């Protein structure tokens, strides 16, 4: 019940509410700009939050992540271009609705469904997270390493088109994290005699490079393309949403919210997968499956509820185990570290009030972006069409440099950011997985520490991971996830080959 005092405390702080409100607007706009993601915005704004108190800093970035996921639906419906990967499923029915002159109605359905999904996800997080943290406190180094191992495998293999390139991205992330001094013996690793490298690669410039500058490089390939907006419909009658119209969406919204919440708890899967799983499941169970893909309101409601329901539960592995479940989680680790807050199961002992105040800010942020979106989504859409991308991306380019410099006041970090930016573009171009790279970079330190502590505890070397049942269970989960993914990709590959043979 810690959430109620936290809510009261947040609601009585107008400055904090102002940050949450600003985050709701910024996230919505960023999410709605095709090509720009909430992760990019958060990475770019991260250095600004060094100068803020921990709670406003975390709340600001956390709510940008939430409202950014919702903002993607605006672009999907109005521009037929998903603002984020997570809103690609929304586009399937959202854009046909817009073509029928019902863009306003589609956006209202998207807003309500996103808000319900996000609330369900957040409430599940609030109810379950302390319980998970209690269990996590009982895990020893062998179990923790097994959890890390499963996370590496799942993150590397499940996202993206190619398992080998996904896992290679994760391995590269681990190798880059090894640069610097070994934390236990202070031995130099991969420093090649460079003094700058002995301090290791800093997380903030790496993330700004991968997510922000990498996107700027990618946007060069989109130069000259204009975003055409479908008229959002001046016909008030056609765009009014009644309860009778929304009622058939409710079972889809509830089911999709739970699907999204479950997928959100698993590290690395993220909102895009949740949205497509919810869309597929919704269509399978729908009374009108033939209408899906042609402008069914349920086809907008299901993926929107799912992709927003991911947001809250994706924080569970981060807050309880220190394992980021998403790119946004990986970036938020930076904020926790910069403010000297140790994440992991002990967070609920050392910073319980802060965590619940963050959850309260999340709940308030959902209500804020819901209200802004319900009444102003079309305005946001019109605003975005007026932003010239040939000016926007050079400004983002310049901002990424100053943001990377600001993190430690060090020009070496800016070089790191440039290298990471090019690497991020190359990874996207070659179907590698930048998210797996960054998340593995973040996980590597903790995984190595747990691994070496486990070996020190062990009398039988590596056998400790096999003889401890929970550790063995997580190792098997990782390997099973890999096997299932390889099998599913081989099946898809065979289907594609058969289709081509015909």
């Amino acid at each position, binding site marked *: 019940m810690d959430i109620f005092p936290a809510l009261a405390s947040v609601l009585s702080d107008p400055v904090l509410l102002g940050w949450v409100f600003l985050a709701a607007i910024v996230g919505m706009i960023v999410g709605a700009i095709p090509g720009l993601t909430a992760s990019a915005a958060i990475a770019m704004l991260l250095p600004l939050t060094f100068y803020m108190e921990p709670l406003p800093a975390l709340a600001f970035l956390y709510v940008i992540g939430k409202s950014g996921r919702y903002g993607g639906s605006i672009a999907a419906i109005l521009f037929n271009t998903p603002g984020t990967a997570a809103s690609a499923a929304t586009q399937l029915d959202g854009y046909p609705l817009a073509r029928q002159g019902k863009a306003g109605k589609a956006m209202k359905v998207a807003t309500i469904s996103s808000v319900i999904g996000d609330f369900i996800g957040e409430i599940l997080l609030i109810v379950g997270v302390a319980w998970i943290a209690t269990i996590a406190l009982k895990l020893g180094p062998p179990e923790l390493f097994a959890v890390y191992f499963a996370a590496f495998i799942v993150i590397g293999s499940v996202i993206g088109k190619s398992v080998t390139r996904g896992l290679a991205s994760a*391995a590269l992330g681990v190798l880059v994290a090894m640069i610097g001094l070994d934390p236990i013996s202070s031995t130099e*690793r991969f420093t090649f005699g460079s003094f700058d490298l002995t301090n290791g690669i800093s997380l903030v410039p790496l993330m700004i490079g991968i997510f922000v500058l990498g996107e700027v490089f990618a946007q060069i390939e989109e130069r000259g393309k204009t975003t055409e907006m479908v008229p959002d419909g001046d016909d008030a009658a056609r765009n009014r949403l009644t309860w009778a119209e929304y009622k058939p969406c409710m079972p889809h919204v509830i089911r999709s919210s739970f699907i999204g919440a479950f997928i959100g708890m698993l590290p690395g899967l993220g909102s895009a997968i949740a949205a497509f799983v919810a869309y597929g499941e919704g269509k399978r169970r729908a009374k009108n499956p033939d209408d899906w893909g042609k402008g069914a309101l349920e086809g907008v409601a299901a993926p929107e509820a799912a992709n927003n329901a991911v947001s809250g539960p994706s924080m569970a592995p981060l807050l309880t185990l220190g394992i980021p479940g998403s790119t946004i989680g990986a970036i938020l680790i930076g904020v926790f570290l910069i403010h000297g807050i140790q994440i992991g199961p002990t967070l609920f002992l050392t910073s319980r009030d802060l965590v619940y105040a963050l959850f309260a800010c999340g709940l308030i942020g959902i209500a804020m972006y819901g209200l802004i979106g319900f009444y102003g989504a079309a305005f946001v859409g019109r605003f975005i069409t007026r932003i010239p991308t040939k000016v926007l991306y050079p400004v983002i380019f310049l901002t990424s440099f100053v943001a990377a410099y600001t993190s430690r006041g060090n020009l070496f970090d800016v070089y790191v950011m*440039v290298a990471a930016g090019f690497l991020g573009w190359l990874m996207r171009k070659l179907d590698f997985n930048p998210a797996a790279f960054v998340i593995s970079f973040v996980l590597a330190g903790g995984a190595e520490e747990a691994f070496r502590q486990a070996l020190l505890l062990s009398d039988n070397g590596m056998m400790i991971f096999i003889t401890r049942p929970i550790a063995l269970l997580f190792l098997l989960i990782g390997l099973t996830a890999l096997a299932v993914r390889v099998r599913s990709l081989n099946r898809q590959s065979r289907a594609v080959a058969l289709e081509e043979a015909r």
Partner: protein
Amino acid sequence: MSAGPTPASRTVAVALILLGVGATFTSMNIALDQYGRWGARIFPLAGSLSLVALGFAELWGARGKPAPTLDRQHLPAIFALLALAVAYVWVMAQFGYLISTALAAPLALWIFGVRNVIGLLAAAVLCPAAYHLIFFELLGVFPPFGRWFDLLDVFGWY
């Protein structure tokens, strides 16, 4: 191991193997701890050997599959932006933030297709001023001073 063909499979596979082999050799040169244990080597070595193994897996998966060709149309612009990025940091180190940003802002806009001369000139003045004001004045970050020359010495904006 992918749903469809992935670009440049053989090149990527060879690059992964070479990177992995190089990293393996470098990992083997990491000093042992005072008790002669491999502690500091294990993770770098595991990552390196994983890369080698994944490179061979990629090569195996590319057998008999035609790799889709990469779109090279935008490569000159991409490399121009990369060159600008590296030059921007170097000029920042030698001439400070204001001069480097005054040069980089119009060039970045040019690469993205802005051809309006007044707009480019305005960017050369407004961008350094705005970023300096926000980050180095309002947030109080210590600016990167130029090693050879810095406009801040002239204006006295410290």
